[in-house]
């Protein structure tokens, strides 16, 4: 049974690991391969600050909230383990700021210690009259992706540096199941008008005195179009750009100016921070995540694709819940092909 994962960002690698962990012992013939044209540190995931935080509303999409919770709980469970540092995982507290009261988010009971900001705290942020404080997690992909890669390599998963041009190309090679984790460029393998780039730009600086994340929100301009400051283990990420439909991966001087001026207004001491790097990336934005099976004709045979893409600006936040869901879809494929007993005991 040959399984090919296309895409080596946080979604591709975590889905690969999840499936291998769950099914390797049940399917001795399982051979897994990863195909990608970009690997860490050049994936979309690498540019993200890595803060676990969903959007403000799930628009009634309870499924995504559950996947977010599953991811948070999974990561929280790893916090006390020796692997945490290698994974790039740690706790971080911080602020969400608004210019008017807003409803509480669906994730308020998932994070730790969620509460409203006090008047004294709001004095720190002139121009903002309402906000939240909570403790969440940060997962830095520059550590997490290599960690996932090591776990996969140890398990005998093979990696190929290659741009896959079609699903058929995989099936023609003898792949039985393709896991499509191609993120923003999924449309190149199968047109998807719902998938659009949400272009982001960030400035990475040295500001080690900043110990909290600060995310501002402008209900008019939309998510991630308002300044944010997210400290990592080495660098602090300054951002606040989200341009729907913009495919340009080049850094923009205008966006740099916007980010820098807005973040320095938020935290005046940032003016002293040394700029280390500038980066642009394309969030794979979609009204909801595409996580489903698709049976594809391949000559006389039926081949299977599991789609797992369209995680917008919350890929890290939702990744493990989606990996588990993709893994369950894989399990159902195995059952249909009678290749494995279901993991649960029979009644």
């Amino acid at each position, binding site marked *: 049974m040959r399984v090919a994962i296309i895409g080596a960002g946080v979604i591709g690698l975590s889905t690969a690991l999840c499936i291998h962990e769950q099914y390797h012992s049940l399917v001795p013939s399982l051979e897994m391969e990863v195909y990608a044209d970009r690997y860490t540190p050049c994936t979309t995931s690498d540019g993200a600050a890595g803060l676990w935080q969903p959007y403000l509303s799930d628009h009634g999409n309870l499924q995504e909230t559950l996947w977010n919770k599953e991811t948070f709980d999974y990561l929280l469970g790893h916090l*006390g383990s020796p692997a945490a540092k290698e994974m790039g995982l740690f706790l971080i507290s911080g602020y969400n700021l608004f210019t008017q009261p807003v409803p509480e988010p669906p994730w308020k009971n998932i994070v730790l*210690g969620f509460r409203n900001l006090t008047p004294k705290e709001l004095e720190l942020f002139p121009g903002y009259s309402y906000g939240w404080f909570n403790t969440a997690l940060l997962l830095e992909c520059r550590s997490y992706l290599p960690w996932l890669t090591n776990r996969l390599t140890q398990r005998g998963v093979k990696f190929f540096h290659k741009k896959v041009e079609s699903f058929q190309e995989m099936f023609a090679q003898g792949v039985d199941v393709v896991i499509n984790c191609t993120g923003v460029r999924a449309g190149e393998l199968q047109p998807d008008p719902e998938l659009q780039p949400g272009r982001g730009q960030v400035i990475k600086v040295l500001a080690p*005195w900043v110990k909290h994340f600060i995310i501002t929100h402008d209900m008019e301009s939309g998510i991630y179009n308002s300044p944010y400051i997210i400290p990592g283990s080495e660098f602090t990420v300054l951002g606040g750009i989200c341009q729907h439909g913009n495919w340009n991966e080049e850094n923009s001087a205008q966006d740099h100016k916007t980010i820098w001026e807005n973040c320095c207004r938020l935290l005046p001491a940032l003016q*002293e921070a040394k700029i280390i790097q500038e980066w642009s990336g394309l969030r794979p934005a979609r009204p909801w995540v595409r996580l489903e099976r698709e049976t594809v004709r391949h000559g006389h045979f039926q081949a299977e694709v599991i789609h797992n893409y369209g995680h917008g600006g919350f890929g890290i936040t939702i990744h493990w819940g989606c990996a588990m869901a993709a893994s369950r879809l894989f399990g159902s494929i195995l059952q249909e092909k009678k290749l494995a007993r279901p993991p649960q005991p029979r009644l």
Partner: protein
Amino acid sequence: MAAPKVAVVGAGVIGLSTALCITETCPSCSVTVLSDQFSPNTTSDVAAGMLIPHTYPGTPIRMQKQWFKETFTFLFAISNSAEASEAGIHLVSGWQVFKNAPKEELPFWSDVVLGFRPMSEAELQKFPQYRFGQAFTTLKCDCPPYLLWLEKRLKATGVQMYTRKVADLWELHSEYNIVVNCAGIGAHRLVGDKKLFPIRGQVLKVHAPWVKNFIRDGDGLTYIYPGIHRVTLGGTREKESWSLAPDPGTTKDIFDRCCSLEPSLWGAQDIKVKVGLRPSRQSVRLQREVLNQGGLKLLVVHNYGHGAGGFSVHRGTAKEAAHLVGECIASLQGSSSRAKL
């Protein structure tokens, strides 16, 4: 009379902040700082500089709260300004955890720090050996940056600073009108204060930049305080120990205790060990004294004995000391005008 000449003895956080307050309240004074040690070799440089007050048994709580509030307000404004990183002042959030119910549910400073509240059940799960906890956000003064920033501000107002070991306050009587004694643990020998005693503290300063929150055991012995570049792991409270030499057994014990609170610390790198002697006293000695010898006088203001709480109350006690210096100046002017009659 000519501009009063004030000498401040001591260049830790108390000496420097007191000197600064004196220049603010008495711009015409000539202020000089004298100390045998300057940053990075003061007791203050060893401390983490966390704004979490120590309770002085001999001082009214109302006064301790006033000092803390003044200090917090002063530093809060700096942390919010463009100078924050240079001054080494930053906000930090975290948890104080207790194995047994704390003596007071609400410490006197709970409404001065930010967002003080009991920890939730989910938060306490991260600390399986602990049953109660408090979450809040406070400020941290990183040293040397804070002391260097104070020195820079002092120099900008014309304050001179000299390395000098003062053996006896009286030796300054011919050069200065007023001496402010901020000698910390040095006051034991300098003025023979038997009520002042060291409480030895050993700490580790480690590289662990992924630690963003503080964690403190309510017993005050084990704590993890993330600073700008290093995390301070502590500690010990050894009464009457004068030894400044790091103890390797203690180092291992501190590291083990901190790792059990925060397991990711096992990955900490480049462990540096430091020792400081907290200048401890039942109450901070904040009072005037007149030294007389052979018809000559020297006016003294004492500001020492802050023990484990120096950073938490430094600005409040500095302001009060500056006020006492003002009283000294008034009495000098009074006697000099009387002398003219």
